[in-house]
């Protein structure tokens, strides 16, 4: 390679490296701000500011969603596996909002540790399954749960039986 070309090649490498370094350091410094939401663990650890507009996100806990019968108010718990957070929301939840699915809420964290949301968004996962396959998977899951509950039921019944047998 001619020396002039070599020099220009070095300039090109230099531009890319410097740009990467600048952007890398910037995003490292701003990493907390680049995150779209706080996790329930971060909230529990007191990392999230209270009474300021923030977002929190996590998996909606199964059987935690409660809707008021006379208004659009609803409450649900979100979790990241270690901590949970109670969210109050007054409005229409998105169609794909569901328990055991992720959601992101915008609102403010009160001093009582309850998050009051103005907007709730459903966060979709990267899984794509046809309905039949999803049904089959759900059925398998239910079967498993049934089998598990059946065994527990049996153990439940047994103590009931023992007093009867004692009669």
């Amino acid at each position, binding site marked *: 390679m001619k020396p002039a070309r070599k020099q*220009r090649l070095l300039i090109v490498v230099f531009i890319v490296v410097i*740009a990467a370094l600048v952007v890398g350091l910037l995003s490292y410094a701003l990493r907390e701000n680049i*995150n779209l939401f706080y996790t329930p663990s971060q909230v529990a650890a007191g990392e999230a500011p209270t009474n300021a507009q923030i977002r929190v996100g996590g998996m909606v806990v199964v059987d935690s969603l409660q809707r008021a019968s006379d208004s659009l108010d609803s409450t649900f718990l979100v979790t990241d596996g270690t901590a949970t957070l109670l969210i109050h929301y007054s409005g229409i*939840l*998105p169609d794909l*909002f569901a328990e055991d699915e992720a959601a992101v809420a915008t609102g403010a964290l009160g001093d009582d540790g309850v998050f009051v949301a103005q907007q709730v968004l459903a*966060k979709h996962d990267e899984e794509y*399954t046809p*309905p039949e396959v999803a*049904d089959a998977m759900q059925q398998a899951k239910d079967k498993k749960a049934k089998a598990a509950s059946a065994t527990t039921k049996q153990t439940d019944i047994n103590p009931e039986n023992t007093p009867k047998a004692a009669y």
Partner: protein
Amino acid sequence: MWQWFHKLGSPRWFYHISGKFLPWLALASVVLIVTGVVWGLAFAPQDARQGNSFRIIYIHVPASFLALAGYYVMAAAGAVGMIWKMKLADMVMVAAAPLGAALTFIALFTGAVWGKPTWGTYWIWDARITSMLVLLFLYIGIIALSRSFSTRETSARACAILALVGTVNIPIIYKSVDWWYTLHQPATIKMTGAPSMHPDMFKPLLVMILGFYCFYALVLLLNTRTEILLRESRTTWVKELAEPK
């Protein structure tokens, strides 16, 4: 090898060679995209949770792929043009910019259309979507910059520098969903491991991605050829080409 490289640098030679690829690329992209669209929109099963709205993936993902890959094409052409002072590389860079901008816009637009029924919002300033918007601005910046200098050489150098600086954004877009908490879901198609998508849904997507690659190559060649004719309009070979036989 170097002889081939320098030959490729000749716009005239490139114009003639690329002409031979055009019909095949056109055929491949039409066949693949028509197959992919019909397969994806009519025959692939719908998603259990999203219903039919997931089908926008057959446009959204291929367009995003090529918007990112196309940026590397543009930046690489810019670097080659800068190092070897190759006119043709500059033409490829200028030809790739509007194409990339269009694909980025399609990716953002289809994402917004999908986001409303799925997330509940058209737009959110998360890392993935914001970095994709930055990509659109980079493409638009290159287009604007390439037309704002009176000499081709200055314009080529300015565009190449901007294109090279912007390459930093590509891995950020790609990895944003893993590095930060975003609303956008992580990648369905993984570099390693099986895609988290049913094969019946994934196969048409693969066909669409291949189709978009062919289509990208086709439009890039067409744009470059137009740029060649425009810049070489004073040469005898272009004049001969334009003369009615």
